[in-house]
């Protein structure tokens, strides 16, 4: 079941179209990556989900029904442009933001105490925000995003400003939130974190969704049936021992082995490759070249650009 879905959402600003009939489906308890180059419309979509701005058209469904104003209590949002009141103490501020999300004063205090202990932030309570480092502030912001235990968490570039250690803590915590039953929408440019975290993605480019679905199946569709093979005991050209249809994309050699990247015809499998090569070489390793999200991202965006150009 989808926890959240947007159907045909469009948003027109005075001089450009920020979203053009965008549809996404965010399955329950999944981590959903919202990808796209700068200015593609990600932040606009996120603001629409948070009901900060209203779409011109399109439907938003949340927990099986129409998204309603009071649902903001069930959503936690960490914006890309984020900050805190500099002159307020950390504790007061966290209490204030938690209460704005609908928690009672008492409940907010109790939960904040738990999280401050867990994140080793006990000593910060009475400090002013301006006394904290940027990374520390980010931790406070993350904490107030999840404090009301929302059903849907939306992180816009959550890792910016975190050092690797804290980024890892954050990553763990996002996964823990998923385990607890939260659904996460997560917008980023950082493709390695997409590979690590996301179950599904939608790629938005120039106001449109150009690619969406489960990460695994997307990778499958972007696979080119290419294998890397490491071998020894053969000095001739690899292409000469391969049947027609098999294409060597690259060759290299290091101290131990020779390596080649070979694209197979659609009907061939890795077994066929091994069979043809086995009589000539000693094989050390064969592995399928799966495109990284980074490659897919670049490919999808540049292909789309090409199409747009021809359409124009």
């Amino acid at each position, binding site marked *: 079941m989808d926890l959240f879905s947007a159907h045909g959402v469009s948003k027109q600003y*005075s001089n450009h179209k920020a979203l053009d009939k965008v549809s996404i489906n965010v399955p329950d308890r999944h981590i959903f990556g919202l990808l796209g180059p700068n200015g593609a419309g990600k932040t606009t979509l996120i*603001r629409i989900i*948070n009901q*900060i*701005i209203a779409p011109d058209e399109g439907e938003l469904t949340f927990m099986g029904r129409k998204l309603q104003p009071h649902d*903001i209590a069930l*959503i936690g*949002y*960490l*914006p890309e*442009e*984020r*900050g*805190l*009141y*500099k*002159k*307020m103490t950390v504790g007061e501020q966290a209490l*204030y*933001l938690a*209460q*704005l*999300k609908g928690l009672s004063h008492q409940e907010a205090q109790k939960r904040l105490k738990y999280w401050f202990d867990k994140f080793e932030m006990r000593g910060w309570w009475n400090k002013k925000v301006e006394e904290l480092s940027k990374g520390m502030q980010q931790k406070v*912001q993350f904490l*107030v995003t999840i404090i009301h235990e929302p059903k849907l968490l939306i992180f816009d570039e959550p890792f910016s400003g975190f050092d690797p250690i804290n980024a890892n803590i954050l990553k763990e915590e996002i996964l823990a939130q998923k385990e607890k039953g939260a659904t996460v929408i997560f917008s980023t440019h950082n493709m390695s974190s997409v590979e690590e975290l996301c179950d599904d993605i939608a790629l938005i480019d120039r106001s449109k969704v150009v690619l969406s679905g489960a990460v695994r199946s997307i990778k499958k569709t972007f696979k080119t049936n290419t294998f890397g093979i490491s071998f020894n005991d053969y000095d001739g050209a690899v292409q000469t021992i391969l049947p027609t249809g098999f294409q060597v994309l690259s060759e290299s050699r290091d101290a131990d082995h020779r390596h080649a990247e070979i694209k197979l015809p659609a009907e061939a499998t890795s077994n066929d490759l091994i069979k043809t090569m086995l009589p000539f070489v000693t094989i050390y390793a064969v592995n399928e070249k799966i495109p990284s999200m980074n490659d897919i991202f670049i490919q999808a965006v540049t292909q789309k650009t090409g199409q747009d150009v021809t359409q124009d």
Partner: protein
Amino acid sequence: MKKIFLIIKREYLTRVKKKSFIIMTILGPILMAATIVIPIYLASRPNETKTIAVLDETGIFIEKFKDSEEVKFHYLVSDLTTAKENFSKSDNHALLFIPKTEVTLPTNAILYSEKSVSINVKSYIKNVMTKQIEDLKLQARLTELQTDKQNPVSVDEILRSIKTSVDINTMKIGADGKESKSYTEINMVLGMVSGILIYFFIFMFGAQVMRGVIEEKTSRIVEVIISSVKPFQLMMGKIVGVGLVGLTQFLLWVVLTFAIVTVVTTVMNTTDFKKPATEQMMAQKQGLDPALTEAISSQDDSAQGMGVVMEAINTVNFPVMIAAFIFFFMVGYLLYAALFAAIGGAVDSEADTQQFMFPITIPLILSIIMAQYIIQDPDGPVAFWFSIFPLTSPVIMMIRIPFGVPYYEVALSMALLLLGFLGTTWLAGKIYRTGILMYGKKISYKELWKWVRY
């Protein structure tokens, strides 16, 4: 509603706890008390005895003004022109002219002088005249009652019917014999002070709203908050919260100033302040029912123990003044604060605010410039229109109110101000909600107009 309350609470508490607020709250009343007490003190110091010539065409007040250490009265029998001529030659301090009236009892007098007459002396003259006229009215009323015993009249009604207000206009006679009106009336001072206070409060707290909005924008917390509340709620919460801070400060100022002034004047009264005798109403009290006697004497009692100046200040209707002040201050503030909030939302830093501040400050500054003129002609058409127009009415109406403004005019002004407030808030809400999400863009008026229509 709960959320807007949370916002108001935060805005209020963070500001009230600031050191600058506490310092202002203490310094303000000291300064204000000083501006009230020092002139009173100087004015009330008995220096050489001054002589005031009295030209009473009515004859009612002959020998009613009693000589004191400070001032002597000298009664003339002549016409005004010769009296004025003689006055210029004499070293009399002032010439009091009470013109003849045909039907009613006189309720105004003109005080000619070369130098301005102290409020002290003026208040004394005013008091004596008021008491005398009230006395005469009471007498007339009593005769009426004795002849017509069928209609019982309540004490309150009698007191109300004899209530009199006397106007004393001061005219300055220059060395060249030219006359011009001079203004030392307490209501002018009050009008000016409250007008300037409103101007000052609107600027001070309006700018605080603007700075608060800019702070939220530059610290980038605004998007976190508007994912929990509507931009309009955030804007109104801030405006109301800051407004309550202003109101708190104002009320503290009034209470503290009043406390300081009372303490200081009481000390002054008991030391070197000679109060002119004012007991005159006793004559006709015999033969009245006890309640009336008591009411009259309690009026007298309440007047005692206070300086003459304090008595003069008490002639102003303070509850009405303060109520009107709070209304015009609050609604005027709300109207402008919405505009200030819109500016804060539209810009990225305080340095960018100048171009948008300009059109907002014009009506306010114009109000203060016009104040000098309006105080001389508080019932004229200019005063009327400026006190009706919502952008200038908070300052101008407050200047007019101590002089007495017809209720329908006040009501009209208030209604228009409320409408103006709704209008600016609507406008500001539109600019604000778009502006707070815009970063790093220089905004033009054209752009703002787009946001409003959008």
